[in-house]
């Protein structure tokens, strides 16, 4: 038995099975969700030792697997990430019968998550860039539908992600032999510049951010948000690999400054655009950009000051983001068939016709903005506090960025409760959908009201981001 078999090969096989049973949406959704849940549970509870005893059988277990001369290694330190990854997709797969995205969503989604797991596992870690790109290519049929020409957002997504990979790989080749120190300063500067451009392309950093709102507008909300959630996590974990392996980059004060400036820039730009945006799908894209900006700020704090607290803050940011985006994806998918477009003025009166869905969308957006009482608040407050102790001016800009999203959400709220202007399709909201949304919204309030319980849970993830300390 091998960890790569369990978390990489097995999901790929299941993806093949899901492709065979693609006609039966509910069945394939159940199979996919149960598989992902089992994999998350195994990551949480399977002991990381050389032998696993199951009743009478003693099965030898290895954490590494040799593949074409390179290693795929999933150690105990990677388990928390695997739990997060597979648990998130399990929740996502459960919602498929309600959201009704393209039928390819389940098999390709499972294959994508297996590729992200492989990206975490591959040694040298640089090769993760190639695996992430393969996952991106697999995701294209999810966001571009048959019968419709490929949108500009899809083409830009494909372009930026494909261009990001060579930049990161070439910078990695420059870095070879630089593990101990920067060596030749000119080459180090070129390598860092290439690395920064590569990650800017992969993460959608300004000015390469345009694909996120465009893709949100062009595609079905469910698979688009699935990509917006998982891709930045995979890329950020890959980026942390650089900080892990090249200590001198981590200890360079310019790295900290660069991360803070880029993070703040993303928050501010996303906030300003969200405040004036007239389309809910694009506003969702800007909310995602804002959250990626906060993640960069969290990483900058993790490498700059108290690593224990801010490591927790980085991890704790993933759950509120996952739940908020899940609510938005599900609610917008249900509206997708009921409204002509997601333009704010086309959503007038929606709050009266679909109160549950509308309220969930508003609360999820407020959570992403970091409004008090909601799950995003403790995470964002922690980051703003941390930043203000180092660079008060940046923290003020970050607060203004969050306000931008709050203003945009208030505009949406005003439109939703104003006079009715939606289609005559008065088919009531599905009860199951309301239950899903209520559970999600309840969790957002629960985490927002009792963040300590949640942080204690997160702190039990022992190995995550160990080297950032």
């Amino acid at each position: 038995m091998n960890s790569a078999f369990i978390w990489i090969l097995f999901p790929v096989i299941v993806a093949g099975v899901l492709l065979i049973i693609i006609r039966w949406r509910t069945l394939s959704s159940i199979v996919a969700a149960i598989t992902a849940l089992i994999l998350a549970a195994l990551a949480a509870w399977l002991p990381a030792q050389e032998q696993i005893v199951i009743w009478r059988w003693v099965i030898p277990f290895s954490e590494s697997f040799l593949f074409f001369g390179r290693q795929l290694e999933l150690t105990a330190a990677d388990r928390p990430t695997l739990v997060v990854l597979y648990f998130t997709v399990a929740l996502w797969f459960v919602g498929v019968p309600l959201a009704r995205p393209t039928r390819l969503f389940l098999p390709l989604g499972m294959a994508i998550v297996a590729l992200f797991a492989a990206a975490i596992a591959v040694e040298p870690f640089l090769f993760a860039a190639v695996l992430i790109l393969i996952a991106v290519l697999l995701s294209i049929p999810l966001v571009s539908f048959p019968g419709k020409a490929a949108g500009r957002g899809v083409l830009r997504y494909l372009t930026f992600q494909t261009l990001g990979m060579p930049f990161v790989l070439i910078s990695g080749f420059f870095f070879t032999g630089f593990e101990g120190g920067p060596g030749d300063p000119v080459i180090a500067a070129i390598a860092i510049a290439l690395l920064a451009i590569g990650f800017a392309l992969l993460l959608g950093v300004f000015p390469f951010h345009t694909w996120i709102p465009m893709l949100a507008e062009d595609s079905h909300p469910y698979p688009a948000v699935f990509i917006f959630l998982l891709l930045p996590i995979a890329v950020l974990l890959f980026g942390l690999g650089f900080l892990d392996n090249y200590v001198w980059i981590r200890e360079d004060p310019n790295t900290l400054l660069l991360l803070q400036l880029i993070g703040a820039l993303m928050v501010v730009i996303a906030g300003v655009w969200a405040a004036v945006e007239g389309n809910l799908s694009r506003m969702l894209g800007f909310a995602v950009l804002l959250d990626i900006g906060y993640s960069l700020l969290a990483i900058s704090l993790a490498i700059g000051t108290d690593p224990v607290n801010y490591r927790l803050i980085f991890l704790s940011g993933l759950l509120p983001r996952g739940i908020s985006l899940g609510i938005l994806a599900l609610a917008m998918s249900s509206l997708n068939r009921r409204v002509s477009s997601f333009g704010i003025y086309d959503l007038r009166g929606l709050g009266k016709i679909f109160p549950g869905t509308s309220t969930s969308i508003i609360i999820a957006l407020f959570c992403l903005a970091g409004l008090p009482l909601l799950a995003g608040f403790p995470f964002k407050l922690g980051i703003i506090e941390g930043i203000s102790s180092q660079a008060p001016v940046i923290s003020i800009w970050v607060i203004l960025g969050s306000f931008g999203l709050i203003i945009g959400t208030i505009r949406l709220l005003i439109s939703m409760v104003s006079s009715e202007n939606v289609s005559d399709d008065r088919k009531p909201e599905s009860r199951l959908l309301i239950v899903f949304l209520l559970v999600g919204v309840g969790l957002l309030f629960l985490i927002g009201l009792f963040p300590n319980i949640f942080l204690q849970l997160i702190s039990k993830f022992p190995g995550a981001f160990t080297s950032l300390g």
Partner: protein
Amino acid sequence: MMIELISIPVVILTFLTGTILLVSWEWRFSVVSLALQYCCVFIMVAFSWPIETAAVKLVAGLIACVVLGLALFNLPKDYTHQNRLATSEIIFRVIAAILAGLFALTGATKLVELFAEISIEQAYGALILVTLGLLQLGLTEQPLRVVVGLLTVLSGFGVIQAVVESSILITGLLAVITLSLSIVGAYLLTSPTLEEAK
């Protein structure tokens, strides 16, 4: 030795194929140019790698051309006419390609300084491919041109990568990316003509 003798003609052919890809609206020319471009990439990679390993790039590239060609063959006949370029646009693109080629000529010496193992012909070829690919990407929003532009940039990157890295895994993964990109291109080209599943 034989390969080194033909290095300069290969660089010139790389530039010509890249320029044809930039200005051509007839898909047959584009696919043949792309196939020729992969032959050039194979030769440039063979400066650094054994022929049998370099052949991976050639085979993957040619399969990509076949995939794109088959998708384009099945498109409605008016596709070519929709993508026809105006004469002024062709002139603009040729001038832009020449400027990109000149940039590659000047930039190649810097690349040789950075990577000691790279030959000047490889540096010329790689930079020509990268600059013409980026130019292609900057001038279009058509799926075929976007995919061809990305394949061209990745080919240029592949030449540089061959000099600094000889891992079998990364060679295989890059071949997978080439094939996947062509399949994605074929999907994006044909998806408007497909019926949505109920």
